[in-house]
């Protein structure tokens, strides 16, 4: 502690107190630059929590390089930052549709697949994906589906169709994602259309469908539906499998289903940015993340499926068997990738705003 006796006035001391709060918290911290010898540094821009510190430390030892992780919380944030001209990142983890945008924008470097041997271990279902069939720029990393998480104590028999979200018996116990494409995707599926529809009349029909659902919805949220499921405040939640799998761990009566009309499949991919100054290291890092053992550890922690087919056998059995983590084979034909719609997105935007303001 600084000795207080030297302070002259009481006011000074109060400000000292304020600054001590600051100082005491900051004094014991090593800065990011400490530690590793000055060598190569890899900048990884990814979703928060996507990589655990022990894996990073392991890679740093193996490659004798330093890894700095920065995080974003939406694909659009990632794009905005890169389009704005922020450079310096080496590896990033955009989702499927964003990969195609980034390719068109010339933001990505071609991958040197010979330096990423683990890329050959891609699960069959994830090969030749529409947005980058030859893995020239991207390799799927973690993936999953969007479906319904429900409390099997309340909802029985188990729901088979998205129409359960229109069932007036569950008024006020339904949550929907706060995401225009995903919410419209549900309505489009219910009326038997593709979730990438660009037809204005079809989008209008979907909007009418959603308007009739709105009075039943407790909240549109992409963040807290897992908590709402656990506390029992909602019985039906439209959401990402991984989050619902996390809720299951705390409340076993929660189950997950991809309804029979089908749903969204997504994959977050690993890419190397064109402006990277450490491309070799970047390829090596991607290869490391795709290693079966490393990937399985990631899946066990995050409850998102790994793209590596050998990793699945190494994942905890209960996750392997969990349809919220690894989708059932039978659901695959009903899954659809979300495509970037270009300027047609305006129609969704308009309909979404109308839905909200109604």
């Amino acid at each position, binding site marked *: 502690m600084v000795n207080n006796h030297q302070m002259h006035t009481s006011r000074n001391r109060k400000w000292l107190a304020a600054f001590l709060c600051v100082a005491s918290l900051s004094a014991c911290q090593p800065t990011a630059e400490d530690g590793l010898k000055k060598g190569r540094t890899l900048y990884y821009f990814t979703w928060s929590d996507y990589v655990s510190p022990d894996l990073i430390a392991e890679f740093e030892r193996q490659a004798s390089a330093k890894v700095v992780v920065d995080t974003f919380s939406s694909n659009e944030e990632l794009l*905005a930052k890169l389009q704005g001209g922020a450079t310096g990142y080496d590896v990033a983890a955009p989702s499927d549709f964003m990969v195609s945008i980034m390719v068109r924008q010339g933001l990505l470097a071609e991958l040197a697949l010979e330096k990423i041997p683990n890329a050959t271990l891609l699960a069959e279902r994830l090969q030749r994906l529409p947005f980058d069939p030859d893995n020239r720029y991207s390799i799927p990393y973690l993936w999953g589906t969007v479906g319904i998480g429900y409390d099997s104590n309340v909802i029985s028999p188990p729901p088979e169709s998205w129409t359960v979200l229109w069932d007036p018996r569950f008024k006020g116990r339904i949550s929907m994602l706060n995401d*225009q494409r995903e919410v419209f995707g549900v309505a489009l599926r219910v009326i038997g259309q593709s979730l990438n529809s660009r037809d204005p009349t079809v989008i209008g029909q979907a909007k009418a469908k959603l308007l009739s659902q709105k009075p039943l919805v407790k*909240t549109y949220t992409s963040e807290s539906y897992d908590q709402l499921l656990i506390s029992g405040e909602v019985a039906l939640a439209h959401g990402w499998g991984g989050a619902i799998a996390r809720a299951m761990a705390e409340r076993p009566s929660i189950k997950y289903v991809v309804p029979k009309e089908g749903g969204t499949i997504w994959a977050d991919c690993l890419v190397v940015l064109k402006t990277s100054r450490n491309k070799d290291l970047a390829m090596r890092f991607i290869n490391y993340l795709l290693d079966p053992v490393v990937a399985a550890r990631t899946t066990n922690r995050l409850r998102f499926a790994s793209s590596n087919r050998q990793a699945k056998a190494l994942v905890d059995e209960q996750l392997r068997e969990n349809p919220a983590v690894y989708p059932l084979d039978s659901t695959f034909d009903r899954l659809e990738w979300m495509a970037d719609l270009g300027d047609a997105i305006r129609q969704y935007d308009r309909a979404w705003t109308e839905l909200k303001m109604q």
Partner: protein
Amino acid sequence: MGIFFFIPLLIVLAVSFASRGTDGGVEWTFSLTNYAHLADPLYFRIYGRSIALALATTALCLLLGFPLAYSIARAPIRWQGIWLLLVMIPFWTNFLVRTYAWMFILRTEGLMNTLLINLGVMTQPIELLYSDWAILIGLVYGYLPFMVLPLYAATERLDLSVVEAAWDLYATGWSVFWRVILPLTKPGVIAGCILVFIPSLGAFITPDLLGGAKTMMVGNLIQHEYLVMRDWPLGSAISFSLMALVLLAVMAYFKTDGRLDRLERGV
């Protein structure tokens, strides 16, 4: 410092006349469509709602903040700093974490309902969260210090003898407040109202998390255009119009106020 401020502003102004690239980003073709877009009646509903909520937030902050700021300003001088710190410390914790705490307090099975039921105030839990009331509570909570600090700054060393004299002259506390204290603290009240009104107009996380995202406020709209639609030009156009609106109101105020001041001083 000015350049760090005005040049970015000019960039955004330029962007607001450009158009959205198909992949987001900006295409530099001049057009006024973004501004034409704003006249949409749908958007007017959003503006109206936001202004109403922001006004209510400002009024409530003033109502809550005034007695607090006044008591702090009245406290012995060595206590004042400590009181101010006590007011600010809650805001040194992360905004999201605080908002989550409010969600816990307000939800159906939450603290507030449990408390009210146990006290026998009511028998059935009521839906507090995901309503305009929840948004209002969240906004007032978030922006209360924006009101308290300028009020304190303006109230401190308010001439006590004037207030004492007023107590002797007027019968009720209300008229003392209305005719003496308020006029003396007016600049603080104005500053506080500006500092609360403007950011609550642009709020977007509070309406989403506490309001259940069932409606939109201007803040949501701007955020949506920038970060979901990747339509920076439209986002900029909305922001600019909003800015112009608020600025005109504030400047109009300052202008009339300046004139009144001069009248009062007999200049």
